[in-house]
Every structure is written in C-alpha cells, then in structure tokens.
C-alpha cells in the first residue's frame, strides 16, 4: 500500500476510497470534509454518492457510465487543484451548547477516565466542558458524532471489556468523545449523560449535527438534567448558534 497521502484505492467494484490520513488528525479531517464538498460541487458524471469518514472519503460510481480509471483520473485532478489539508472548514457550521451531567450514575467511568488521563475528577470535568469539540464525523449509528480532540492527556485506549451505555451517553477514549444515538454496547469510557437525541427520524432535520459543527458541553446538576429530559425530550436543553 502507498504510504504517501492522499492516496486513492479501489473499494469493491463500484467504489473508490480517497484516504487523507490513516490516523486521526485535524488537518486530515478538514481535508476529508473539504474534498467531499469539492466532489459534490463538481457534479461529476457517473458519481453516485460521496461520503466522508474520519480521515477518508468513499466515492461510489456507476462503472457502466464511467470507467474506474476515469474516476481515479478525475479525483486526482481535483486533488492537484487544491491543497485540501489547508482548506477551510465547511460553511454554515453550528456551535452547539449541550447540557450534560458528569460522573455518578450518569457517568460511572468518569473517575476511571480521570485516572487514565492522570488528572483530577475536577480537571476532567473542566476539560470536558471548556473545549469546543468538532464533529469529526457522523457514523456507526445514525447521527452519532465522533467529537474531538480533547487535550493530549485523554489519549488513552478503549476499555478492555464492553459496557452498556444509554442513548445520550457521553463516552471518552483516544482523545475523542462519542455522543451515543442509541442504547449501545461500547468500549468507550462512559463519563456523562445528555438528553440530546442525535437521530430524529420524524423531524424535518432528522440529523441535527453535521460534520464540521462544534459542540460544547455545559455541566448541570442531576435535578436540572432530569427536568430538561422531561421538558425537552428531543434536544435536552441544547441550543445552537451559527459560527461565523
């Protein structure tokens, strides 16, 4: 496999992967989002779907309409036109503020996570609420964000054993947080809880978050959390504003 990035590889009979990074990086993620937008804007013949993951883009094409070699050549042309690692983030990004309760029954692995990060519980909650985290990608389950990156101390691996977390759970590992769209087994450390629903199939905007958005959690008391869960069952008290 080539080691220089970005590189292009076939995936199945009608797919092409354009990989910007094989490890999580801010620039690689930004390049991924910008390249997806560039492919969509170019409106290329025979291209059916273009989707971004954390550090790669999957382009699906119709081999009857356009041969693989032509797709690769076109994508290579796009890559040469622009330095995607220096690209801007997508337009119309939102900054979300989402209330959350940390520790205790709402985040049973918080103390463990703080230990692994080598910080106090207080510092852990500070880290989790003071940083504006980017939605790096949505995936695994509908609307479920990978948020990053936390300070370097949070670069600890996933748990050895799987635990069960409820919908709305905040879980940490490898400098990222996942905000769970569903009740789910996971190897990530469950540190907090929101009443934010990541997937609302009946809603006009069924997926509220978009890659490139930013999220900041706001620590609240358990009683306030329970009240929000009742009064705002979809959003859990979340608000957003457009980023400039």
């Amino acid at each position, binding site marked *: 496999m080539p080691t220089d990035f970005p590189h292009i590889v076939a995936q199945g009979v009608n797919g092409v992967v354009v990989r910007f990074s094989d490890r999580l990086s801010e620039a690689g993620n930004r390049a991924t989002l910008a390249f*997806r937008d560039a492919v969509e804007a170019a409106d290329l013949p025979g291209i059916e779907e273009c989707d971004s993951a954390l550090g790669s883009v*999957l382009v699906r094409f119709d081999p009857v309409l356009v041969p693989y070699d032509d797709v690769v050549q076109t994508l290579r042309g796009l890559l040469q036109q622009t330095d995607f690692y220096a690209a801007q983030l997508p337009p119309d990004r939102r900054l979300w503020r989402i209330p959350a309760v940390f520790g205790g029954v709402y985040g049973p692995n918080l103390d463990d996570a703080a230990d692994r990060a080598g910080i106090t519980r207080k510092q852990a909650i500070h880290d989790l609420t003071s940083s504006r985290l980017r939605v790096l990608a949505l*995936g*695994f389950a*509908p609307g479920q964000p990978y948020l990053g990156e936390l300070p370097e101390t949070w670069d600890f691996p996933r748990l050895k054993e799987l635990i069960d977390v409820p919908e709305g759970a905040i879980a940490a590992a490898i400098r990222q947080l996942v905000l769970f769209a569903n009740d789910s087994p996971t190897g990530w450390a469950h540190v907090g809880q929101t009443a934010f629903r990541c997937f609302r199939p009946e809603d006009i905007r069924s997926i509220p978050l978009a890659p490139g958005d930013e999220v900041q959690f706001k620590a609240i008391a358990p009683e306030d959390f329970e009240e929000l869960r009742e009064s705002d069952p979809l959003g859990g008290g979340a608000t957003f504003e457009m980023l400039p």
Partner: protein
Amino acid sequence: MTRAIKVLRAGPQMTVQDLGRPGFLSVGLSRGGAADRLAIAEGAALLGQPFDCAALEMAGSGGEFEGTEPIRFALTGAPMRARIDGRDLMWNASHTLEPGERLGIGPALSGSYGYLSVAGGFDTPVIMGSRAAHLMARIGTRIGQGDALPIGPDPDPARGAKTLDVEDRFKGGTVRVVPGAQTGLFSVEDRARLAETDFTRSPRGNRQGVRFDFDGPPFGADGLRMVLSEMIVPGDIQMTGEGAPFVLLPECQTTGGYPRIGSVLPQDLPIVAQAAPGAPLRFSFLSLDEARALYEDETTSFRAIAAQVRPLVRDPREMADLLSFELISGVTAGQCHDEEGDTR
C-alpha cells in the same frame, strides 16, 4: 375501510422493506432495505409495478393474512409453503386473495427471507425517502398480529396471474469477491486460504450481517496495525476480532475499524443473505478488471427480470378471459411513491 392487508398471525421478524434509503452514509445511516433485493424486483415484475414498491419481508417464517378487497399479490424470495384456504399456491408467482379468504404462509423450505408483495405496494409512512424498516436505526417497527397494512391502488387490476423462473439462490454456494482498500493488510497465504476454505453460515446473523464458521486458524490482518474507521457498505467482508469472516448486510453500521479482506459482488449478495444457518459457502476472488467486466447496474438487471415474466398457466376451462389474456408483460414506468407519499 381502506384497501389493506390484515395480519392474523406473524413470524417473529416481519418488516416492511423496499430498496432502502441510499445517500445517508455520511450521517451514519446505512441504506437498509430488503435483505434480498432481487426478491423485491421479482415481486414487482410479477405484479407489473415499479421496483420501489414496498413488500413484506418474512425472516424464517411467514404468517396468516386477510384482505379487505380482492388483492393481487406475489410470493418471492426464500420458498415457503403457501396456501389459500387449503389450496396450495405456487411460489415465484402472483395470485389473487379474495375478501374472506385466508392466505397462510409457512416456514421457509430453504433460504432465510421470503417476501409477500402486493399490487400497489404497502402504503406505510415514507421516512427519509423510503418505507423500509431499519430496526437498528429505530426506523419503523416489526409487523405483528393485529396490524392492518394499507395498500396503494392496484396499477393493473386486470393483469392475470404470472410466474417467473428463478435460479436457486437459497442454499449457499460460491460467491465472488473482489479485493478492496484493505485486502493488502492480509497475508498472501490468508487470502489464498480464504478462497480454499469451506465455510458454513453461522447461526449468528441478522440483517446487519452474517458470520461464517470454518475449521482452521483465525484469519488475521498483518501485525496490529490500527485501522482508522472508514466507510463500510453491504457486501464488505470484515474480519472480526475472532478472525472469522462477517459479511455485511443492509442494516450494517456505516463505519468500521475491523479490516476488510474484500467485498462480495453486489449481484452475489442475495446468496449470502439467503443462506440459512448451516448452509455451505465458498469465496472466490476475482480481479477488479474481471468484476468490472461483469458489472451491470441494478435497474438493468431488474428490467431483465421483468422481461422474463410469463403467464401462470391455469386450466383453460377456468379462464373465461382467455382471449384477452395478457401474453406480453411490461413493467410500468414511474415511482411507487412520490415525495408526498402517494402510491402512484
């Protein structure tokens, strides 16, 4: 009462399915839709209606149904014993259910997923462009006893009963695989071994994917290289932590970190989905060039199926309308639903 089918009895995993909702991978929603897409196309072809009409997918076992008015229907996918009031019905064929009659569909004789399509399609709510239940995403529900499923208007009420010859894709076999972006993470030996091993469909499988069991050491990617999660799609063969192949199906997750040794050709995926627990399976590698030469887009394949539909021959003495019997079948153009959720 509007045109509907009432469910008097239902197997444990019965859902409304169509061809799913493409285009939402970036937001974490896999396409979903019927486990055996060919069966949906066959049902539409038999009834003379668009391929995007929704049908009932019955996993393992069927159920018992009653109609509110005469309803043309088709039976496709994994063959199951089907009867109307004690009269045996041919599978891969269309029939009519009269009010007051009961349609009983038994367990699968081979394969996993049987389909009941109705003329006009099931008119259940359209969510994000599709009626397909995606239980992993919590879209739609299982269909159970007591449910009444609304049906759209019949596009061609005078159309006679039809049948279709279908190749047996319900007992496993050999599926063709192309290398992918991560095939290089596996050793040449393991890639060769994959193609030489006799696999059996594990009891562990559902609409997300199926695992295949085998004798021999686990398959493993070289070293402990971390793979940054990438997009995964139905047909991809993930090597799980246990080193056994897991072939992804319509309700798979959208991103995955397990290395993928290759991808099953889309046209062979129904064989994987239909393999019942214990069914034998082999993987055979094709080069990308070979696979591309075989590629046919789905709509073209579906149209070819529709062209093979022929009248279900009955006793001519029962056929009062013999002279007007439609001998050339066609599939109507257009869509089974528009954005308002209308059926025509």
